[in-house]
């Protein structure tokens, strides 16, 4: 299963479906994570807040390949995309282990194939450096065997880059 998360607007869903099995448009209309950990301790893999993101971790967890299309924000994800990722920590369990020589949570859905991040917008060299680091760290944390980051000048190019890619 390949999933694309993007912040390009719902009108881009159809176009992106050419390159994925499912598409999630992060539109930022959801409550942010409250840091309660109940998606680990009370009702595993489901958020305490019962809005449209309450099972987002299950969608991400069952995706062998994940592509994130995001506007650059200070070398990180846009607020809507980060909102979705923050609400999806149920992809892991509350238990901890070592991965890459560091402490990380064990993976509820096991290791997955690859994480591709496509960042668009005005991006400085320092921000590119941070985005590369962020992608690498996310791949370790979320359990992706491979990862990549690419940069596009605008949303149109980012949508095009993602839709060229064939499902793995």
């Amino acid at each position, binding site marked *: 299963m390949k999933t694309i998360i993007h912040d390009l607007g*719902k009108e881009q*869903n*159809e176009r992106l*479906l050419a390159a994925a*099995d*499912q*598409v*999630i*448009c992060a539109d930022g209309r959801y409550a*942010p*994570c*409250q*840091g309660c*950990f*109940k998606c*680990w*301790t*009370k*009702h*595993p*893999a*489901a958020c305490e807040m019962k*809005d*449209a*993101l309450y*099972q987002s971790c*299950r*969608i991400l*967890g*069952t995706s062998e390949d994940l592509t994130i299309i995001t506007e650059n*924000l*200070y*070398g*990180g*994800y846009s*607020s*809507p995309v*980060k909102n979705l*990722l*923050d609400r*999806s920590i149920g992809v892991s*369990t*509350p*238990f*901890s282990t*070592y991965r890459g020589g*560091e*402490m*990380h949570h064990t993976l*509820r859905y096991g290791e997955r194939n690859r994480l591709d991040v496509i960042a668009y917008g005005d991006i*400085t060299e*320092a*921000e590119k*450096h*941070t985005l590369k*680091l*962020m992608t690498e*760290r*996310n791949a370790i*944390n979320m359990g992706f065997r491979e990862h990549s980051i690419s940069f596009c000048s605008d949303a149109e190019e980012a949508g095009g880059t993602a839709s060229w890619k064939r499902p793995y």
Partner: protein
Amino acid sequence: MEKTVLINCSPKNKMSASGFIMRFAGLMVRGRKEYLHLRRPSDRPGILQALADADKVVFAVPLYVDGIPSHVLPFLQEMEGFCREKNLSMKVYVIANNGFIEGRQNEPLMQVMENFCGRAGLEWCGGIGIGGGVTLNVERIMLPVMFGLMILNMLLRGVQGEDILEPVRSFGTTIGTFLLLCCGIIAFTVRLTSHINKGTDAGKRYTRIMLPSFIFILFADIFFTIISVLQGGIFRGWFSRLKPDANCGIITTNNH
């Protein structure tokens, strides 16, 4: 007199480890101080108003998925516009805290904050990245409990005519252990506040709770097991690969 605004960026209303470390740092910051909490969009105008005449700002930020919590990002964008419009150039310090043991895991968050300063025309002055800061929450619950037990023990021993100083020595050992575990956090926070008071660049420094990582992991696992038993998650597919419901709302597929 210089003004420092300290912003707790944790979404938690209570028991925020980041907020606790920020308050500890605030004790040593000289001059005018204002403590604020960024949890909701409605908090943003008040914080921007406080920043209008600030010389320094300290962000206390928990690490969420290798970065800044999503509710903080729109505020940073607003603050960027505000600072540009008002031509503000305050000094920015960061206290980052994460639930893993390695303080260095805060590095992407620190870089994002540095990039933010570059965009907003503010002076990036570094900060500290803390690993395992959540342990401080355990300590701040345990210490008053231990203190209460010490008083009770002293009273009982007094009644029985035994050495009443023994519980004091025992409590002293507990305090000593606490300080030893937190010595890195305390030392680096003192160092950071010294830079804040002088208005100098603190650089980026990483520290942690002084426990071997395998012991920290063991305690973390025990903690989450107890909480999961109490909240019932352990009986509801604790480690299961649960699949999304068919109508979970946000997905668009080829079948729609």
